[in-house]
């Protein structure tokens, strides 16, 4: 709920940051949900890549790169979780 103060002109002033902060938190929720969806998609991709009968340097490289992407996304997820934890305090 917006707080109100009386400004120099004697008028009630609305809190401008609360609305903006709420909007920010909504965007944060959207981005974090996207992170989770991506993690699921990557896991499915890795499973499909592993199931295909394809050998050689390119196949090994592909599986390595997917694993690297999963690891990178794990960092993304951890940062998102940390932000969600702080979010609880701010909200």
């Amino acid at each position, binding site marked *: 709920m917006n707080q109100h103060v009386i400004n120099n002109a004697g008028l009630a002033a609305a809190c401008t*940051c609360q*609305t903006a902060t709420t909007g920010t938190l909504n965007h944060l929720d959207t981005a974090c949900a996207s992170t989770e969806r991506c993690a699921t998609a990557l896991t499915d991709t890795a499973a499909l890549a592993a199931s295909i009968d394809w050998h050689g340097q390119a196949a090994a490289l592909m599986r390595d790169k997917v694993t690297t992407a999963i690891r990178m996304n794990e960092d993304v997820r951890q940062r998102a979780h940390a932000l969600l934890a702080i979010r609880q305090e701010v909200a």
Partner: protein
Amino acid sequence: MSWEVTSRVRGGVPLSVADAQQFHALIATLTDTSRQFAAQSAAWATLSDQLTRTRLHVSSCPVHRDSWPGGSLTAAAMPRLSFIVELSRACEAQIRACSTIVQHLDALAQLVARAQGLYLDAETKAVHASAGIPTDPLSTASSVLRGMASDILRSIGVVATSDDKSQPLLDILHTTSPYHQALMRGFSIAVLAGIARSRTIRPGSGMTAIDPLHGMLSRNSVNVAAEHLASISMQLNDRRQGNRIELSRRYPVWQVTRQADGIAGAIAQLRSLAENQYGTGEDNGLSYATIAIQRYRRMDGSTAWLVIVPGTDGHADSPFGWPQNVELMSSQARTRMQADSTRMVLEAMERSGIGQDDPVAIIGHSQGGIVAATLASDSKYNIRHIVTAGSPVANHPISGDTWTTSIEMDDELVPALDGAANPVGERWLTIHGSVAETVHDNGTGPVLAEPVPETADARQMSHHLKFHQAAYANAAALGSGAVTSHDRHFRQVIAGELEETSYWQGRMMH
């Protein structure tokens, strides 16, 4: 500066329906996951924008300042502001990570597609459509494009003879590479139209205008045009060079070629033999217009042969000069077989003792590859497998029993001189190589590229064999079943111990 090659395979043993479905599914999944990461990156970017606005709002909020305007923030607003700062930093990291993952996944989707030969037609059409490239050969017969085609053709000669002038021309060749095939076909149509007109004017010449007109509409219009041109150029060249080939056996000081271990090994032997002849390698004691013939003893006691044929050297008395290319490109078997380079290789094969039924593999670079295609089309020999590197052989009527492995660089022009794409089939595999500056592994470069050895700071003519060598190495690394099966077949043809290598040099004499 270093350069690298990435390859795509086209043709060869087709994937089973089930395998094709699996690879399509993998590409679709990689692409879809990439899109989801792009969306995630966009979500963090939107949050980042929102944070900028929120920061302004918090900093200027009348409620959270001690006095307004110009006061400092209240203690209550401080945690909110520090959260915003932390969130901003995190957003940047998230965007960077997501973008890198997008690049990885896109590169992997491309890797699967080029390894399995998927989507190449669609890719080509997309490139042509986006570049506004005229794929209709009749439209490329316009005068402007005709001029462009002749400029490009001229550039081959200039690039081969001049270092200081070659860079802009190499850049032109590179940027116009998607046009080359259509331009050459359009150019040949224009040539045929000119011939048809001249014959209409001179009806007493004994020929009709029908042949060139018919040729204009055919897939092999370049070869029909070459036949018409060869009928003139052969006589002129015979007057200049003579029409007698003096073939002599040569004995290099050291063994220039060794046992070929599969197609990669054969390319290495070809390069070892050819480089000195082009003036780009060490002196191997052999002069220009020299081919090598290797005799292999198979496990069952029978004999197999590998014929190694370098390309055009351009010397005045060489059977591998420039005019012979026109004859080899002719639509008529008789003209192709009369080309000096073909006759020289045939005579060397005969003098080496190759029997009509002995299995033979031929590897050739540029003109050497056209000779290989000619022998596989028109000779009586049992040519089981040919490997062509940078050769325009799409329209040669190669026997259905012969396996053909073609390696073509996107911007080398020469293999596009046939004005057509190579046929696609189990026994005809084409490896397309692209040269680019090496991108150090920051996630933005292609996945799995082959470094080109001994590259200079500036772009080089990719018709050089080291580029074909890198392209084949890259294709082999892709793990494509098509490449593996062609390599296996090539090995089977020459399976056995190398018994002898003979070197044969040809000179034109009057």
